[in-house]
């Protein structure tokens, strides 16, 4: 039956956690489509270009373009809707930013039924594929949301399918692999041919045998002459982090400062590949699979929901929250972050909502036990970083390697003093980014100020030269007149 080589990775992640996985809550629950009555789509905080009429009351068709982001990715309207209003709000990101939220009333519950874009041939050339990914709104569905078309450049040789969903409770990627295996294969085929990739490695954890079986039973004829293989990892958090995954599967270490594509390695989440297959068929990204889970959810489930589905609607669809105080997190229990009640609807990167009882953390001082250093998958010294950041020594923390921190939260899980290590690191990194942005702005302003000063100086000098020449000309003219008069009077 197995046509592809299936190997167990012999490499082992330094640190990390082998936590109880909690995936059983949703792994076998049937997938349910969900269409809410309203959609709340957060508009980008950066520059963007609206592509539809947003006046109140106007109707936008399912699949019609809504706006284009600064990266050139076009977000399609997930359903046929009527614009209700445009309100101010905060984004769903871990550091919320002010944004505008487009509120839409859903008129038709079904996603686009006809292709919205002209279907591509089964052998599209790279330029068409890149254009299609941008116009179909394809972003990395694993959580980072990096525009897919921007990854497809340079000399690529290996495609890595990141099916290692290592965080506990998460089942969205596994579900995509089970439900959409043929689409994933189609996208792999298209990408391998379009970019002449010589190798494809599908990486899974050892706790997702159903996904492996689904992919193995649907392998297409077209890929049989290709170097396609499966690599199975020991399930250990955070082995699915991009650089960790590449090291575990291929034995290559990608530096923090570089992206894997710079080394010819293309990493895609299975959800992104399934969406790419849809895009090739002419359907833009309108829906995604999202897991709603956690100890506080009454009946945890897996849903196919349109982008913009309100968080409350997702939780209500999963039976709501247990009575009592709970916190809802966007993402999983480790890498996720708490979101407020008034959050906008889910975006393309919302793979999981996790709700757990709100327990007040009682922190105590660091006892220097070193457990965090053992748990750190990038071998940092979290206790040192924490100490430095607590004393406002951002420079020192950066020197100690803060930039390499994955914010995976493994250190938080093992800390006996319950210190908010990852929060502190996230704050530090955000501050560092703000400082370097400010420094860049200041450098540009200094350059522009100096350029202007030089220009004004040059203009003043030129004006002076002109005046000087004119004076000389008039003096020589006077001289000539005087000479002529003198001649006459003789």
């Amino acid at each position, binding site marked *: 039956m197995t046509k592809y080589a299936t190997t167990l990775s012999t490499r082992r992640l330094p640190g990390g956690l082998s936590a109880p996985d909690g995936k059983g809550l949703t792994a076998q629950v049937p997938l349910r489509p969900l269409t809410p009555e309203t959609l709340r789509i957060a508009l980008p905080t950066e520059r963007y270009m609206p592509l539809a009429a947003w006046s109140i009351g106007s109707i936008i068709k399912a699949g019609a373009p809504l706006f284009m982001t600064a990266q050139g990715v076009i977000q399609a309207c997930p359903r046929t809707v009527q614009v209700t209003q445009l309100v101010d709000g905060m984004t769903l990101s871990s550091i919320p930013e*002010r944004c505008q939220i487009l509120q839409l009333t859903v008129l038709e519950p079904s996603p686009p039924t006809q292709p919205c*874009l002209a279907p591509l041939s089964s052998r599209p050339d790279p330029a068409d594929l890149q254009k299609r990914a941008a116009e179909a709104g394809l972003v990395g569905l694993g959580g980072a949301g990096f525009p897919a078309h921007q990854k497809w450049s340079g000399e690529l040789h290996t495609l890595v399918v990141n099916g290692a969903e290592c965080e506990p409770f998460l089942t969205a990627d596994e579900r995509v692999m089970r439900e959409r295996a043929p689409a994933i294969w189609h996208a792999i085929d298209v990408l391998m041919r379009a970019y002449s990739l010589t190798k494809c490695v599908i990486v899974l954890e050892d706790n997702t045998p159903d996904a492996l079986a689904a992919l193995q039973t649907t392998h297409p004829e077209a890929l049989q002459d290709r170097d396609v293989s499966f690599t199975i990892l020991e399930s250990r958090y955070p082995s699915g982090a991009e650089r960790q995954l590449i090291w575990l599967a291929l034995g290559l270490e990608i530096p923090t400062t570089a992206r894997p594509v710079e080394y010819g390695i293309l990493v895609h989440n299975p959800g992104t590949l399934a969406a790419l297959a849809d895009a090739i068929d002419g359907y833009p990204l309108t829906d995604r699979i999202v897991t709603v889970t956690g100890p506080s959810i009454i009946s945890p489930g897996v849903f196919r929901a349109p982008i913009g589905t309100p968080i409350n609607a997702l939780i209500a669809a999963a039976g709501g929250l247990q009575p009592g105080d709970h916190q809802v997190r966007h993402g999983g229990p480790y890498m996720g972050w708490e979101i407020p009640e008034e959050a906008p609807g889910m975006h393309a990167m919302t793979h999981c909502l996790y709700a757990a009882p709100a327990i007040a953390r009682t922190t105590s001082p660091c006892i220097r036990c070193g457990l965090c250093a053992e748990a750190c998958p990038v071998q940092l010294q979290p206790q040192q970083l924490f100490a430095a950041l607590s004393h406002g020594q951002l420079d020192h923390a950066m020197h100690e390697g803060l930039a390499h921190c994955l914010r995976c939260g493994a250190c938080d899980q093992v800390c006996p003093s319950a210190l908010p290590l990852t929060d502190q690191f996230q704050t530090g990194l955000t501050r560092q980014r703000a400082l370097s942005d400010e420094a860049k702005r200041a450098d540009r302003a200094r350059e*522009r*100020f100096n*350029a202007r000063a030089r220009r004004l100086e040059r203009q003043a000098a030129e004006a002076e030269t002109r005046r000087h020449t004119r004076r000389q000309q008039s003096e020589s003219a006077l001289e000539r007149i005087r000479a002529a008069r003198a001649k006459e009077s003789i």
Partner: protein
Amino acid sequence: MMPSALDVLTTILAFTGLLAVGGLLLQTLSRRFQVDGSPLVAKIDACLPQTQCGQCGHPGCRPYAEAIAAGEAINKCPPGGAETIAALAELLGVEAMPLDETHGTTAEPMVAVIDEDVCIGCTKCIAACPVDAILGASKRMHTVIADECTGCDLCLAPCPVDCITLIPRSRPANRISTPSVGRLAHD
């Protein structure tokens, strides 16, 4: 044995030659690697926020840096606020002091926006902008290059029709007003 006169002469000549060569070398090197302006001024300038707003009483950040190098107080920069003062105090080895609020108070970073319907195209703001962040021509609409604007507010006063306002830089919806992409295959 006493050194001969010739020996003494050779020694003197040798040393003179050596000194001459060394002197010439030093002089060429010092000319070759001459630093423009005072390195201290450049270091002070690097601490300043480069808003070029002139609230300190100098026509820009570099002139203020020169004044600080000459002994002026370090607490006259409202856009930089406490952080800039702390950085300057550290650099110069002096005591940090609170901001002198006669020069203004620290506010959140702003950016200028021209109401393009009201603008008459007088170019006065273009001349006033210290970082050339306003685009336009005589009797043509002007606009601010938001990414380059330092929010110094120097363009506000010269505007004869008061069509320039400052908004917080973090405000969203900095959007392009006219869609310029072609329609897609939708309709």
